[in-house]
Every structure is written in C-alpha cells, then in structure tokens.
C-alpha cells in the first residue's frame, strides 16, 4: 500500500512485523469496532424500543444467517468469478447484519453488542426466516434461494427507506443498492440454467421445487411487525407479495420455467423462524458460526 511506501518498508512482511506494527497498521487486522460509532441511536419517542429491537434482530438475523450459508460456498463455486460474487454478496449481507444487530442492542437499551447477539444467543433466540438457514443441494439450489431471498429483501428494504426509525431507514437505503446487484446476479443464473440444457433445466426446476415451501413464511406478519407497521417503522410483509410475484414471474418467464405450486413448509405447531423455531440444519450452522467465540470468550484479533 502507499502507507508502506511512505514509511520506507522494503517488504510487506517488514511493514507488519512486530517491531513496526503499531497494532492497527495492516489491513483489516484492527478488530471490529461498533459499526454505529457516532450515529445517533436514540429511539424516537413514539417507537417501542423492545419491538424495534425484535424487528432489527429479524432483519439482522436474516442477513447474518444467509451470509454464513453463502460463505460456506466459498471455494466450492463452479468458477472463480462465482466465488468472488458469493463472497461479495456475503460481505454486503454481513455488513447489513452488523448494523442491524448493533441497532437492536441500542434500541432495547440492553447495551448488547453485535457480537453478543451473533455469538451469544442460542438457536431459539434467532429470528431469521428459515429460507436463510437451509443448505443447498447444488449451485442451482443456492441461486434459487438467493433469487427468492434478494427479491423479497429488496422489496422490503425499498419500503423501509422511509421507516420512522432513522437508523433502519439508513441501513435500508444503503442495502437497496447492494441487493439490486444480488438479485440481478441470481436472476441471471436462474435464467442461464433454466434456459440452458435439458440437464441444467432439470436441476434448476428441482431447485425451485426445494425452495418453494419456504416462501409463504416470508409474507407472514409477526405481532411486533404488525405493531411497528402501524407506527410506520416496519413494513407489513404481506404488502411485499405483489412485487415479489411480479419479479419472479419476469425472471422465470425469461428462464422458461414455472413457479412450482407448493404448500408452505409446516412449522412446529405453527411457529416458524420468526418465533425462533428452526430447521435441523440451524444447529450445525450456529455451532460453526459461534465455535471460536465460544471456545475463546472475549478473544479479539
């Protein structure tokens, strides 16, 4: 980097050696700081802080868990360019998650950090939809899930740009720009595979069939969402359905595929991801995500 040149180091190794390292001189080794440092996190008087924290956990957990599943694909994608794409999408979602989890800790005045939420909660405390947590049978499966996830989340964040909570509105405004790229990426792969060979079409069709049962849950509204939607903080997820269906119809039309008719994946006695009731794969995901933090509590880079 230009730092290195300024400081007269001969090699990158010299620049990061213990003798010269001031603790924050080499890229990305500085540990994590509060992503909301300096942002006014006061909750507007008319908003219920507890509901707002719950809502931020829902949106933050969706992004965190989807990001982790994307990260598990790295070095497994069919081409290097796809690895790069999946890493970038995972990074965008991780950034959204960090902001939203930090927002939750400020909103409920618990003072919990993003790390407390990501690494310190048990399975039943995660509020993500189950679409985010399931594993993919193949790359087509990931693309089907990413198309559904990004189409739904883009429709949601587009509306949240005018949320009565200024932090949620700001995260949404930035997230919309990122999700536009994610949706385009997934849509192009769904079209390429659907309108490709007989074999790729069959794999893509199977991927859609595997994803379809997880879709109805996306449009069910929780009690907190209902109250926050009335206060113009949240969006009623049912309001996203028409836009979602329109985009899927467009993409699948180009791909010459049909959306499979499917009843929703049943919850256990009704509750699902938003209530902390998850599928079997969630336990293994969290075991991996939280392993370092649980083995070495309080460790920093």
């Amino acid at each position, binding site marked *: 980097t230009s730092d290195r040149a300024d400081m007269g180091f001969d090699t990158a190794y010299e620049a990061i050696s213990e003798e010269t390292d001031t603790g924050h001189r080499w890229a990305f080794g*500085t540990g994590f700081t509060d992503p909301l440092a300096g942002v006014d996190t006061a909750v507007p008087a008319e908003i219920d802080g507890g509901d707002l924290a719950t809502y931020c956990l829902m949106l933050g957990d969706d992004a965190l868990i989807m990001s982790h599943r994307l990260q598990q694909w790295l070095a497994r994608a069919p081409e290097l360019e796809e690895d790069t794409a999946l890493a970038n999408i995972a990074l965008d979602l991780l950034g959204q998650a960090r902001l939203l989890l930090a927002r939750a800790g400020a909103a409920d005045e618990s003072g919990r950090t993003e790390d407390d939420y990501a690494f310190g909660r048990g399975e039943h405390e995660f509020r993500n939809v189950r679409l985010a947590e399931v594993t993919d049978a193949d790359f087509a499966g990931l693309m089907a899930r990413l198309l559904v996830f990004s189409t739904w989340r883009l429709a949601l964040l587009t509306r949240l740009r005018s949320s009565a909570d200024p932090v949620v509105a700001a995260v949404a405004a*930035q997230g919309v720009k990122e999700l536009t790229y994610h949706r385009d990426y997934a849509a192009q792969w769904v079209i390429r595979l659907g309108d490709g060979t007989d074999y790729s079409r069959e794999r893509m069709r199977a991927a859609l069939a595997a994803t379809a049962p997880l879709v109805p849950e996306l449009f069910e509204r929780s009690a907190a969402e209902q109250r926050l939607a009335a206060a113009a903080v949240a969006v009623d997820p049912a309001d996203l359905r028409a836009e979602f269906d329109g985009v899927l119809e467009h993409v699948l039309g180009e791909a010459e595929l049909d959306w499979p008719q499917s009843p929703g994946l049943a919850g256990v006695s009704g509750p699902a991801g938003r209530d902390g009731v998850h599928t079997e794969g969630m336990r293994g995901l969290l075991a991996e995500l939280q392993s370092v933090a649980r083995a070495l509590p309080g460790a920093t880079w």
Partner: protein
Amino acid sequence: MTTRDQEMLVRARQVAQSVPDPELPMLTLADLGILRDVAVRDGSVVVSLTPTYSGCPAIAEIRADLASRLAAAGFADVDVRTVLTPAWTSDFISSAGRRKLAEAGIAPPRSQQGAKGGPVPLTLFAPGPPVACPACGSRETERTAAFGATACKDLYRCRACAEPFEHVKEI
C-alpha cells in the same frame, strides 16, 4: 471559533482529506467522497465518514489510518464518527477522483440518476451506457464478472484492445 481553532481546522482538514483509501490507494478519502465533515470541537478533531458499502472491510483500516495520521500531525484527540445518511453513492466520487481512477486503469463509475422512490427495476440485460476502456478509450467493452476483488468494483474486458480492466460499480 478562535483563531487557534480555525488554524487547527484548516490543518486537520488537510490531513484528513489527503488520507488514501486502502482499497483504491490512488484516491484520497476526499476524492472517494466518503469524508463528510471535519470539525474541531473543544480542541478535539471530529471526522465524519460514510462507508461505501454496508460491509466495507476497509472502514476499520480507514478509521485507524485517520487517527494515526492526525496524531502524527499533532492532533492527539480524534473522534471518527460514522454518518449513514445520505447513503454513499458512486456519484460522490469527485471529478479529480474519476480522472485518477482512469489513469490507474480503472474505469470510473457512470453517473447515476437521482434517487428512485419506487420499486427497483430488474436490469437483467441492459446495464446502462457502455463503459469506456481506460486503456484505449473504446466503448466496445463487455462485463466479464458482476463482482470483483473489492465490494466496489466489477470486471470488464475491452473487445478492441483485448485488455481486461476493473470498473467502479454504480451504486
């Protein structure tokens, strides 16, 4: 504001503006348009930054770099704050920044229309006007990958001179 504060402000602003971006080191933070404000309050320097992307990993490095360069210039007390609104857009890159990108072989972002309020349209096969090749200037270019080595770039190839190149994405 005292004369001393004003002198501090001028110097602090000069230092902060000249800090290079770690991922696009040909650009300063000012060129990139992420430096929102530099202020002096009660003898301490308050720098306001807007991240380019939600997950931009360079922001921690930028914060540390700002603090250390300002410390080297004699400002012991530095507060780097995040400003999320308005969200960063590639339109914030200055004209000098665009020129520096092109000189470094990176195609600068095309200008965006104003903020859109309604649903975001799919841009499946029509990603806007062509990107000019930074090597030969030809507009006969094609995107080879939608994502690149950093969050803010994608990859292109020039059909005229066959040169591959990076391009700063429009967001």
